[in-house]
């Protein structure tokens, strides 16, 4: 057998073991990176799934406001609120601002439908009934998808704050995503004046 010094044997042994430990470390870093990417894209996917419905709701809203304007001459404040929230959503800069306005709009719509109860002619209008049904359907779908979106955001936000992922998330500029919440004020049942 060829002469080999104890020092060289030690180098061989530690080189192989160290190499494997290095592979394990690199794999762990790649795994964390891949997980961050996956979580980020999960949030984007969940948001896209909601966004489609939110856009459809905005389109229906425009038609609803037009129908309501004809009958609800004395409810300009309620209608104005819906209109201004709609334009706020259309011009929203970021997802956080948009989500806040969407939550407020859901509450404003609830008030609008409650107030509409005071207008028998409006209630009897075929267009209004159809739009109301369509918007209620979209609201339910949004509520279902909101749960999934919030779950995705929650997973992402927790992960980017946890050790060791935070060590990678911070330098890569990963920021927490906003949750899709209904503002506290909008959760209350609308008060109606009879």
């Amino acid at each position, binding site marked *: 057998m060829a002469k080999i010094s104890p020092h060289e044997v030690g180098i061989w*042994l530690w080189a192989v073991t160290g190499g494997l430990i290095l592979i394990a470390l690199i794999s762990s870093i790649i795994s964390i990176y891949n997980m961050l990417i996956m979580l980020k894209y999960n949030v984007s996917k969940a948001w896209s799934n909601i966004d489609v419905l939110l856009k459809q709701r905005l389109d229906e809203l425009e038609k609803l406001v037009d129908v309501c304007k004809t009958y609800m001459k004395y409810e300009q404040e309620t209608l104005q609120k819906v209109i201004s929230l709609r334009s706020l959503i259309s011009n929203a800069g970021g997802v956080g601002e948009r989500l806040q306005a969407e939550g407020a709009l859901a509450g404003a719509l609830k008030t609008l439908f409650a107030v509409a109860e005071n207008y028998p002619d409006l209630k009897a209008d075929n267009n209004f009934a159809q739009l109301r049904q369509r918007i209620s359907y979209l609201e339910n779908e949004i509520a279902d998808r909101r749960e999934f979106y919030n779950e995705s955001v929650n997973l992402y936000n927790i992960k980017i704050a946890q050790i060791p992922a935070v060590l990678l998330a911070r330098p890569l500029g990963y920021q927490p995503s906003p949750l899709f919440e209904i503002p506290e004020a909008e959760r209350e049942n609308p008060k109606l004046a009879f």
Partner: protein
Amino acid sequence: MNGDEVFALAVIFLLLLAGLWLFFRSILRILPRIIWVAGTPTSPIRSLAIGLVEVTGKVKQKETIPSPATGLECCLTKYKLQELRVTQTRNGRTTSWHTTDSGFYSLPFYLQDKEGAQILIDPNDAELYLPCETYYPNTGLPTGAVGSIRYLEEAIYPNALLYALGEAKKKSRFADLNDEVNTELAILRGNPEKMATLDENKDGQIDTVEWEKTVRSAESRVAEETIAAAQNPLDTIVIAKPSAKRPFIISTRSEKEVLSRLRWKGYSTMILGLALVFFNLAGILGFFFNQPSFGKNYYKMVKLMVENIGR
């Protein structure tokens, strides 16, 4: 080199390969699973999207089969029947459990989430993370006596809490119809009482005409059920093995438990693999170069064990 030395070296070499296999298995197989389980958000069934999904809920049976271990109706069972036997070893007689029969049966089942929505799960080719239960059937012998039997079973029973990670996909209509008909006929074949009712001419046999009639009736029943079910869009979706290289995991444990077990398994496999590589590489170097000293000692220890086994 004598025979024992060659054998000891072969053992060390195999242990080195096993170490490498364990190490790379933890990195290439277990680590990605940890990412999939931890990174996939739980979907409400009502708003399930096509693609990789994670769902939790209660098992609701579609069809059931009797579990060989408990006799209870179940949706999936993986069992081993073992008998306690006496075996002769170098140190004398000892008793050990020998597997005399084993099997795996599974049927598609529904998963119902907390909102009451249901989705079909096809457990074929799933990675099952189920607790293994032991049952001792009454054989008249005391437990632990030679000749006594036991069942080791991993099963999914109706109403069990379930975690599933798999691909939600549209059911292929025709393939699905055939599958359903075949499942129905398989269940029928396994039930002698029901089979007896098919024997219309009472000649003690199911002839071709009688069997054809049964097949046609099963086909039309499945077709009617499929048309009725198609009213609900969720009934056209099934969670099954993903087509891409993604995991399909089913467990009666919670997501947290599945994750912690995967982590434990992943890290322990990686450390064990590393340790095996380190010591066995040292053993090989110790044999050829007499260095390092602990490697030489390790080789001697393996050689001693090999000699003891050979005696």
